[in-house]
């Protein structure tokens, strides 16, 4: 194996090692954020009930400002939870950035040696190793998928409306829909013996 191919393959391997580690991290961070999403949903349900208490309830006569006060408290709590989710988002961004860096570094290594490698070497695969071109493409796919997921979550948080009950109730489903990331990365790294 010539020097250029060796270097490119080595870089790709280390990139995949990092990607795998970062995926584990992503999963951990994401699992940890579940509790915040759950309490946000829960709080939104409470807020909804607070809004929908019949005005003529005798109980409220003794506490005329109770509704406003409870609302303020609930919104404060929701704000706290959303803050936690924003922190989560920052950690996810780090993961995404780290994967992007790996992709960029691999592309850079490949481009420096592209002339020397030649198209034949780039697309050549063996029984144990995929071709350089495949590995680069998969890495690019992973990078894009992770970035997209991150942006989806960011959008979700940016468009959050605390008093929109229906939106809040679907938050949990929309926040957790990244299970295909797992299968995708697992499927790809399966081909690569790390």
């Amino acid at each position, binding site marked *: 194996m010539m020097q250029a191919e060796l270097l490119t393959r080595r870089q790709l391997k280390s990139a995949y090692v990092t990607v795998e580690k970062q995926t584990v991290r992503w999963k951990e961070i994401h699992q940890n954020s579940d509790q915040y999403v759950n309490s946000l949903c829960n709080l939104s*349900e*409470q807020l*909804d*009930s*607070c809004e*929908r*208490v*019949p005005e003529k*309830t005798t*109980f409220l006569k*003794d*506490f005329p400002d*109770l509704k406003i*006060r*409870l609302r*303020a*408290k*609930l919104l*404060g*709590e929701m704000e706290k939870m959303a803050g936690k989710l924003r922190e989560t988002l920052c950690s996810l961004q780090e993961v995404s950035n780290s994967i992007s860096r790996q992709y960029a570094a691999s592309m850079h290594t490949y481009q420096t040696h592209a002339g020397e490698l030649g198209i034949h070497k780039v697309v050549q695969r063996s029984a144990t190793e995929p071709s350089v071109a495949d590995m680069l493409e998969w890495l690019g796919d992973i990078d894009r998928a992770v970035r997209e997921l991150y942006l989806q979550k960011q959008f979700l948080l940016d468009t959050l409306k605390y008093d929109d009950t229906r939106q809040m109730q679907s938050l949990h489903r929309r926040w957790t829909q990244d299970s295909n990331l797992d299968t995708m990365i697992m499927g790809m790294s399966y081909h690569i013996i790390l």
Partner: protein
Amino acid sequence: MSESSSGKGSGKRRKSSGTPRKSDSSSPSPVKSPSVNYAKLSPMAKKVRDVAADWHNLIQRWEVLNASGASVSNKIVNCKLTNIESQDAAVVTVEQTSAGFTAGAGEAADADGMSKELEGFCNQLTDTYNAMAKLLEKMKKLTLNLKGQWELQQYQSNKDEGESSILFQTWPIQHFYEVSVELSEMYSRELKLKQGISENIAHRSDRHTMMFLASSWLHQPYIDNRSELLLESMLVETGHR
């Protein structure tokens, strides 16, 4: 203030007083003012310091009770909701089957078991409320204690003028009293709300009202966010933090 003239300070110290419990996870204490020597405080300052520690402990205990009360009130709401649902289901079965009397009997037994469970929860909630009421009594006593100290100081400063009325770093005793009054007012309003909740929660059948009551218990709407600031500044001022 001269030490000999403050007769109250030499009285017996209460056991509950002292430093705040270790259980709270406070941030590392800020830099203490070097000008205050906490070992050599005037008796009045020592008393005020104890009162601040007592406030801290009482509020901690209140929070524990509040959490347990909240879980009980949630149980009550769940209990009521499943009860309502099973009643609805029972009505449907009665309508559907011709043998209505057997279903009716089953439902009655169900409701009976439910009401016993519900009663147990309600008793728990009332007990929690009573424990909170006791805490509030203690809080009021602390406020009275500070009021007494303040009056004593006024009396003394009438006798010998020009004495500094600042006990620790910046607060005069009047300020301690005002903070204490504000805190106990918050807690007394909250307690009133708790009383209302504990009396009402089991007698409602509307889902939203019940949820509203349960979340009112949990979030303590009458205790402002300011209360935390008040307590913390009192602790910082007296050198506990």
